[in-house]
C-alpha cells in the first residue's frame, strides 16, 4: 500500500520501520520476531487511533480520493447485465452522469450515477463528474422510463456539484436540477440514493430525492464545499478544515439529522483499501432497503418520500 493522505504518515513510518527490521534480520540471520510483532501491534493501534478519529476534512479527502471506487465500479460489481443508455434527447450525452438498466438480484432496475474519471484523461472526458443540464435531463429521462416500466431507481451520488459554465447556464442548469427534484418526488417506484463519495450541493440532490438515502462512512454531503464556505463565510479559503467541521457534512452527521437513513461502514482507512468489502456491504444494505420498499405501492412510495422531506428542518414555531 502507498500512502494516500498526509494524516496516514505515522502509520507508514511504522510500517517502513518494520520493513527495515525484516530486511536487517534476514541479512544478518537474526531472530527479531518479537520486536517485529511488537511494532506490528503498534501499527494496528496507530491505525485504530487515526482511522477512528478522522476529522470531517480528512473524510473529505478520502471521499475525493482518485482511487476511491466510482459509480461504474459499483454498477459492474453489484448488478448483472448492465446495459448503458446515452443522451438526453435534447442536446447531447453528458458523460458526467451514467445510467441504464440492469438486473439486481433478479429484479430489473434502473441505475444512474455521477461518474468521475479515474485519471486526468478520464476526468476530462467525465468533466470531473460535474454535470451539465444534459446530464440531469438524461437522468430524468431514465427515471421516467423506470416509472413507466415499474422498475426501482438506484442512484449513486459522487460529484463536486453541477458544472458552473456558460453553456450550462444557457441551457438551464437551474431548471434541469429543479425539474429532477419535483419529478423524483412524483415517481411511483422505489428510489434509493447512495452517496459514495462527495455529495456536492444541488448537483448531488438532483439524483437524491429518494425513499432511502444511504451514505458510505467516509462520504460527505454538503450545501457548499468546505473551501467555498470558508471563502464566503469566513473570507479565508484556508479555513476549509474549520468550515468542514462547522458545516456538519459527514455521514454520521446526516444520520443524526435524520437525513441519511443508514451509514454503510467502510474498510479501515476508506473504501479504496478493500474494494470487495465495501462492495459487499453496499450490496447488502441496498438489497435490504429495496426489499422493504418493494412491498409498497406507488402512492405509498410517493407519500413516504413526501413525509421524509417534509420532516427535515429545524425551526421555531410560536402558536
Amino acid at each position, binding site marked *: 500500500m502507498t500512502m494516500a493522505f498526509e494524516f496516514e504518515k505515522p502509520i507508514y513510518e511504522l510500517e517502513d520501520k518494520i520493513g527495515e527490521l525484516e530486511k536487517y534480520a534476514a541479512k544478518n540471520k537474526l531472530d527479531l520476531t518479537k520486536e517485529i510483532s511488537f511494532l506490528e501491534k503498534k501499527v494496528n493501534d496507530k491505525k485504530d487511533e487515526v482511522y477512528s478519529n478522522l476529522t470531517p476534512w480528512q473524510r473529505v479527502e478520502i471521499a475525493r480520493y482518485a482511487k476511491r471506487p466510482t459509480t461504474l465500479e459499483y454498477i459492474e460489481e453489484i448488478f448483472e447485465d448492465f446495459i448503458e443508455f446515452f443522451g438526453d434527447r435534447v442536446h447531447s450525452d453528458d458523460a458526467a452522469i451514467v445510467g441504464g438498466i440492469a438486473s439486481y438480484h433478479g429484479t430489473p432496475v434502473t441505475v444512474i450515477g455521477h461518474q468521475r474519471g479515474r485519471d486526468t484523461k478520464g476526468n476530462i472526458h467525465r468533466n470531473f463528474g460535474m454535470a451539465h443540464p444534459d446530464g440531469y435531463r438524461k437522468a430524468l429521462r431514465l427515471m421516467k422510463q423506470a416509472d413507466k416500466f415499474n422498475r426501482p431507481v438506484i442512484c449513486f451520488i459522487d460529484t463536486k456539484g*453541477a*458544472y*458552473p*459554465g*456558460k453553456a*450550462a*447556464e*444557457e*441551457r*438551464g*442548469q*437551474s*431548471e434541469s*436540477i*429543479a*425539474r429532477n*427534484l*419535483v*419529478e*423524483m*418526488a*412524483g415517481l411511483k417506484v422505489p428510489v434509493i440514493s447512495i452517496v459514495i463519495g462527495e455529495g456536492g*450541493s*444541488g448537483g448531488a*440532490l438532483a439524483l*437524491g*430525492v429518494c425513499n432511502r438515502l444511504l451514505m458510505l462512512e467516509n462520504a460527505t*454531503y*454538503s*450545501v*457548499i464545499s468546505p473551501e467555498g*464556505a470558508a471563502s*464566503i*463565510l469566513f473570507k479565508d479559503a484556508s479555513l476549509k478544515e474549520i468550515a468542514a467541521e*462547522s*458545516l*456538519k*457534512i459527514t455521514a454520521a*452527521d*446526516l444520520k443524526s*439529522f435524520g*437525513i441519511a437513513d443508514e451509514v454503510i461502514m467502510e474498510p479501515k482507512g476508506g473504501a479504496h483499501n478493500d474494494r470487495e468489502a465495501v462492495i459487499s456491504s453496499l450490496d447488502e444494505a441496498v438489497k435490504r432497503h429495496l426489499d422493504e420498499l418493494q412491498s409498497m405501492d406507488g402512492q405509498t412510495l410517493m407519500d413516504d*418520500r*413526501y413525509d421524509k*422531506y*417534509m420532516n*427535515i*428542518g*429545524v*425551526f*421555531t*414555531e*410560536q*402558536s
Partner: protein
Amino acid sequence: MLKDLFSKLNKKVNETNRNDGTFENSESIMTKCPNCKKILYSKELYKRLNVCTNCEHHLPITAPDRMEALMDEGTVKPILENITSANPLNFPNYEAKLNKDREKTGLNEAVICAEGTIDDTPAVVAIMDSRFRMGSMGSAVGEKLARTFEYATERRLPVIVFTASGGARMQEGIISLMQMAKVSVAIERHNQAGLLYIAYMTNPTTGGVSASFASVGDINLAERGALIGFAGRRVIEETIKEKLPDDFQTAEFLLKHGQLDEVVNRRDMKNYLGRILKLHSGV
C-alpha cells in the same frame, strides 16, 4: 437646507447602488436612478413601485410593499407568520445576524406568505425579501414555502411565489440544501392535484432557490432586469477562463434562451397575473 437634501441624496445613491439586491428604505426626498442616473422624486418613485419614471429600471421593492401592491385591498390574510429560524448547527454568529436583519427589515424571516385575491381571483402568495439574509433559504423559509403549497392544495388554490434569493442558507448546512427537496415534494403534490403554480423570479434569484422552486412553475415569469442564474458570474468566469457578456443571467437573457414564459414590468405585475389567474379560475 439644500445641502441637507443632497447629503441625504448621496447616501441614498450609495444605498441603491448596492448590487446585492438590498436597499434601505430611506426617508430622502430624492432618489437617483442607478441605471439612468436621473434624479427622481422618491414619493413618485414609490407610487410607481420603485420603477424609474425615466428608464423603467426596476429598483428593489420590499416584500410587504409588493404584497400590498399585488393583492386587492382588504383581502390580504397573512399565513404562517410564526415560523422563524433556529440555529440547528450552532453556527457561529448566525443568531446575531438573524437578529440584525429582523431589526433592519421588521420581518422575522426572508419570506412572507398570504392568502387573498388578485383582481378578484383568489390565490396564495409567497414573497421573498432579499434584505433578510440575502433571501437565503434555511429551514424556516423552506417550511413556510412547503406549507404554503400544502395550504393551497388543501383549499384548491393557485400559488404564486416571488423569488429573491442568494440560494441556500449556508449557516444551516445540509439542512438548508434539503429544503429544496422539501419545497419540491410539496409542489409536486399541488401539481398532481391539478393546481396552478406561477414562479415569478425577481432580482436576484440564484443558487439553490433558482435550482428548485423558482424554475418549476407551470408558468415561469421574471421581473425586468432581474439577475437569475445557478452559479455566480465570478465562479463561471474563473472556471471557463472567459469573460461573460453583460446581459448574462439577466431575465432578458433567460427569455432569449427559452427559460422563461415572459419578462414582466413590475407596473404590469398585478394586471398580468390577474389575467392568468382568471383564465385558470375554472380549475
